[in-house]
């Protein structure tokens, strides 16, 4: 384990001009006009990333995650603090930003490689891999301005992942390309992980972080509010989102409903695999509310096993104590501890009204022969 990225006390302040005078005339006429407000995008951020680590950087829009990423990539200078980086770094910030439309795909591969800081010799060595990966063999000598946007992005991604970087920084680029190409990108990221490289992965999609990262850092309003195993960080992230939503909620609806606890009739959360289980979810509501109910089951490693809801029949909360029952007819899970999240969302499913992360943990015991997560009861015989 070697530290490859060390972020020490990074802060970034932007000056926001409310009146922008960019021309000479305007500057002369209004030397001091237009109020300038300073905005702290990042406040004293500290963390390190080691080799062999995939770290997710999570935060909602405006949390400062992109600013932090730009500082790490060296696109932006921090206002104070230092970032130490070891090894070569390839950033997938905006794919194809360095492409020159007038040049051919081939020329652009070399130019883009040089921009990422790799030598011509090295790019020559990986050129065939790049072309293979991007799947545009027939167009490699065509001017890039004639490319479709998909070809453009594929070529850029192919360069960035084939130049053999020690650190790969990915910023929500997986949203591009068709499904098959996305799968290919995820595959590439996985092989990067297997090779022991470091990946810094930025997104506001918690599911992607769960799928890829071992560790997650949560940013909110320029402050780092969590840094730890993905599972724990995402719990903090969700709770924090909930808290700030309550703060900003004018109707008072969010504050009025709270999930108190989950109980079982027997009081125990231990279950044998294949057996059924019943939960009672106790909810206190200040007023009447009709919405949807959601339950999620996760493994301890943060893998989502199941998300289910009330299937179109709303739960009607009345003022005071409410109890909602969940029946699991049979739990086909194998040995292990599983976390249960429950929540109330609005009928359209857009807004979370109340949420309880890790409301309960169930311990499943299994003595069969199957391995993995669920028992499918496969019967194997010769025919």
């Amino acid at each position, binding site marked *: 384990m*070697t530290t490859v990225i060390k972020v020490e006390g990074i802060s970034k302040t932007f000056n926001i001009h409310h009146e922008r005078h960019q021309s000479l005339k305007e500057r002369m006429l209004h030397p001091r006009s237009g109020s300038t407000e300073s905005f702290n995008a990042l406040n004293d951020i500290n963390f390190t990333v080691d080799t062999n680590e995939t770290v997710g950087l999570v935060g909602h829009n405006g949390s400062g995650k992109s600013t932090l990423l730009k500082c790490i990539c060296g696109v932006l*200078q921090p206002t*104070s603090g230092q970032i*130490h980086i070891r090894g070569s770094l390839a950033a997938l910030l905006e794919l194809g930003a360095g492409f020159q439309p007038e040049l051919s795909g081939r*020329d652009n591969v070399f*130019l883009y490689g*040089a921009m990422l800081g790799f030598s011509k010799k090295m790019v020559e060595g990986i050129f065939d891999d790049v072309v293979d990966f991007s799947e545009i063999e027939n167009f490699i000598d065509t001017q890039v301005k004639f490319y479709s946007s998909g070809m453009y992005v594929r070529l850029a991604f192919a360069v960035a992942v084939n130049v053999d970087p020690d650190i790969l920084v990915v910023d929500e680029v997986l949203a591009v390309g068709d499904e098959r190409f996305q799968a290919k990108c995820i595959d590439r990221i996985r092989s990067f992980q297997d090779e022991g490289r470091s990946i810094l992965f930025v997104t506001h999609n918690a599911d992607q972080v769960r799928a890829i990262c071992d560790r997650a850092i949560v940013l909110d309003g320029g402050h780092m509010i969590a840094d730890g195993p993905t599972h724990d960080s995402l719990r903090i992230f969700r709770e924090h989102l909930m808290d700030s939503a309550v703060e900003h909620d004018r109707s008072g609806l969010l504050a009025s409903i709270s999930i108190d606890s989950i109980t079982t009739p027997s009081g125990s959360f231990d279950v044998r695999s294949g057996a059924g289980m019943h939960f009672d979810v106790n909810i206190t509501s200040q007023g009447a509310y009709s919405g949807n109910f959601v339950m999620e089951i996760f493994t301890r490693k943060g893998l989502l096993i199941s998300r289910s809801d009330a299937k179109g029949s709303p739960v009607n909360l009345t003022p005071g104590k409410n109890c909602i029952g969940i029946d699991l007819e049979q739990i086909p899970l194998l040995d292990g501890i599983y976390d249960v999240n429950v929540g109330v969302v609005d009928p359209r499913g857009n807004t979370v009204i109340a949420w309880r992360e890790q409301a309960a943990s169930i311990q499943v015991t299994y003595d069969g022969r199957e391995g993995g997560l669920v028992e499918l009861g496969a019967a194997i015989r010769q025919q």
Partner: protein
Amino acid sequence: MSEGSSARVDRRSLESDAFRVVSARDSLFTRLRNLWNRRELLSSLIRSDIRIKYKNSALGIVWSMLTPSLFLAIYWLVFAKFLKNGIPDFVTYLFAGMIVWNMFNTSLSTATGVIVVRSGLVKKVSFPREILALANVGAATFYFFIQLCVFGLYLVVVQHSPDYAYFWLLPIAFLALYFFTAALAILMSAITVYMRDMEHFILIILQLWFFLSPVVYSYEHSIAPQLHAHGLAWLYFLNPITLIMLTFQRAFYVATTAASTTQTMIVHGHAVPIILKILPSWPMSTYCYLDLALLGITVLLFLLAEVLFGRLQGNFESEL
């Protein structure tokens, strides 16, 4: 995936690698070292600049020779034929000054807006930003050498033999030209981010600058007498381009006149050709000292421009 990747699984250890530091303000030394480390990017950018410029034109790279030649023809027509400025063998004189001017002019007019134009790149990819401006200077340097070849060809055709004794001064003068041009290009590219008017303003400045430099007239003949009368000759030399041009003109132009090849006169104990008062009658040592001093000053200017650029680039992101 290709077979190559399986070989890569054995990652090299990064233990021994030094840390690169990103901080609020890098020292000049760090900035220069980063610049040097990314020289390959610089050459890539220069090559792509040159390629793109002539990509879709029928004559292609020929334009880099044709344009200055046509300008040369126009100036010759206007200044030698219409205005009769009386400089013998005016085309050679003009050529020597024009190649210097073209390098300066092309660099500045392209580099001034380059960071604004390539803002997409500046906001997304990390590299020393001044490389964009330096790439424009690099491309102009490439055209400079092409034009120098054309000039050489011209001299052969008209059977003019330059004053080879002065040729060793040319690299010094050229380096001074390079550093001065690069310093201004870097600075202007950064200033334009904050004041977009510069893109237009620079064209006016360059036009004025052209006439403040001895390209189409002779300093010694037209300017020096009046300035000397008021003791203001130094004022004219505040323009570093002047001295660089004089060096180029001294080396290429001087031997042209029939008189200069045969007649000499003694100045400060040195034999100097009489050059019909077109160029200053300095001995070689004066040219040498002045050029060396200028080179020193322009290198300092370049370093100063680097420092200022470092200060200015901190807010590029929010201004672009």
